[in-house]
């Protein structure tokens, strides 16, 4: 049966209680913010709950907000309940000084590569991940390219004249 976002909000608040730091309905998805150190238990609860059954992890990714001090990185999880045909978005914020969070690979094996990709792009490390290393970039790369302070272009290229491309 299909739940509406408002019903889902009340059910999720009843289930998780004080663990939800912030919740809002954005366009058509309920989005809740949780603390980073409790993420594993919260996602396990959502997965195992008999009524809700968020048994499918759709996507996992990172975002970099350089202006928010102490909350620079966000890890965003989208889970999907097929029983109720509804999605839920969870966000956990991490500080720049210690961007690490628990891995959910034991709950959802498909999170393995998604977490590696987030590590590759942002440098967010996942505790208890079976094999945390770079996946899309070369292993010898020494910076995390999707952080906002790095340019899109390769800094060492010498053949393109930035004046002709509108970049100064």
């Amino acid at each position, binding site marked *: 049966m299909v739940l509406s976002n408002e019903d889902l909000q009340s059910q999720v608040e009843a289930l998780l209680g004080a663990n939800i730091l912030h919740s809002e309905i*954005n*366009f058509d998805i309920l989005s809740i913010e949780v603390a980073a150190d409790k993420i594993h238990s919260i996602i396990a609860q959502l997965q195992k709950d008999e009524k809700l059954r968020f048994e499918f992890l*759709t996507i996992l*990714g990172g*975002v970099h907000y350089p202006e928010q001090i102490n909350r620079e990185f966000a890890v965003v999880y*989208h889970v999907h309940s097929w029983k109720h045909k509804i999605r839920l978005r969870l966000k956990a914020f991490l500080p720049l000084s210690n961007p690490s969070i628990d891995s959910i690979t034991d709950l959802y094996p*498909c999170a393995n*590569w998604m977490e590696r990709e987030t590590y590759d792009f942002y440098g967010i490390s996942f505790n208890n991940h079976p094999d945390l290393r770079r996946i*899309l970039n070369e292993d010898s790369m020494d910076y995390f390219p999707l952080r906002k302070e790095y340019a899109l272009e390769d800094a060492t290229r010498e053949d393109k004249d930035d004046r002709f491309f509108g970049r100064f």
Partner: protein
Amino acid sequence: MSKEKEKVSNSATEFYNSKETIDGDIATINFGPTHPATHGIFQNILKVDGEKIISSEQTVGYIHRAFEKLAERRPYNQITPITDRLNYCSSPINNLGWHMTVEKLIQAEIPKRVDYMRVIIMELARIADHLICDSVVGVDTGALTSFFYPFQEREKIYELYEEICGARLTTNIGRIGGFERDFTPAFHTKLKSFLKTFPKAFSEWDSMLARNRIFMDRTRGTGPISPERALAYGFTGPNLRAAGVDYDVRVMHPYSSYEDFDFIIPVGVNGDTYDRFMVRQEEIRQSIRIIEQAYGNLPEGNYKADVPDFYLPDKADVYNNMEALIYHFKIVMGEMEIPSGEIYHSVEGGNGELGYYLISDGGRTPYRLQFRRPCFIYYQAYPEMITGQTISDAVITLSSMNVIAGELDA
């Protein structure tokens, strides 16, 4: 009428699994990155005992082109060419999925005619994608003829795309809010002749492989995956449906008026290569069915939505009307007014659920755009699917999974 899942076995796998001990040394074989049978650049380092695979280790990222970082630099209408290059065998689906994401963000009202036109294009793209995948499965089992016949049909689909957008493969089709122009008379002629001639050509090719004894012996029992493992690995699309789970984004969260059409979702039994092949063949037939319904009931109306902030005005208006001139300037320079917010939208791509997670902060370019790429997520299961099989089975399993390198690495 009960459907029992009969355990289909592969005689080669049975033979190898029956040998208790490892004979001799374990050899390490490099399957890729440049290999004729991996259609794309992936590397798998296989440890084999004779012909039987014991373990494998994957390396991806050989065409990492940094789409997600590139998208943060480009205005919304310039991101469409990047989405083309994700699953380049069915680029219209990627393009139209992106347009739908932006339309969700700006909350545009899309006319019904645009929806039906989009459905026709997306189903044509799905047919094109499945034709490539299945012809390649045939080639890898040794039937090279199975490559030439479907590619002729793909040329007809390319001609249909050219009527709309001018390009064959990486189409950059449509605009935010609809299409550039209505279907031309030439498009109507070509589509009608396609709908008449394709089913016959398709069944001629299909009959070569579908009940072919050699093909069935080669593909039944290779690369199996159970539904539970498939769900755990985040499978979507034909690979998941071959394992027995009928999840389709078009049915679960209908978009672009898919709820108006009547089609079935084909589901396999064993999750092996033969089932993946057959599910895709059946999906081609269902796509033809959808196109016939959409084309037969194409509603009258406008081919574009009323979103002057995002949709380029007519050239005649630009030269005569001040407002149109200003809109044209703003759209071309990429200075559109986008509301801020976060959207997740997904469409049923050729390989499964293709999702777009867009964070907009009100600026001219996205703050963050993440693509949920189905190939990237289900390719993780490949080592599990080939363990215990022979190397030639690993080759067919890889081609039947339809891993497109552009979508894998983004």
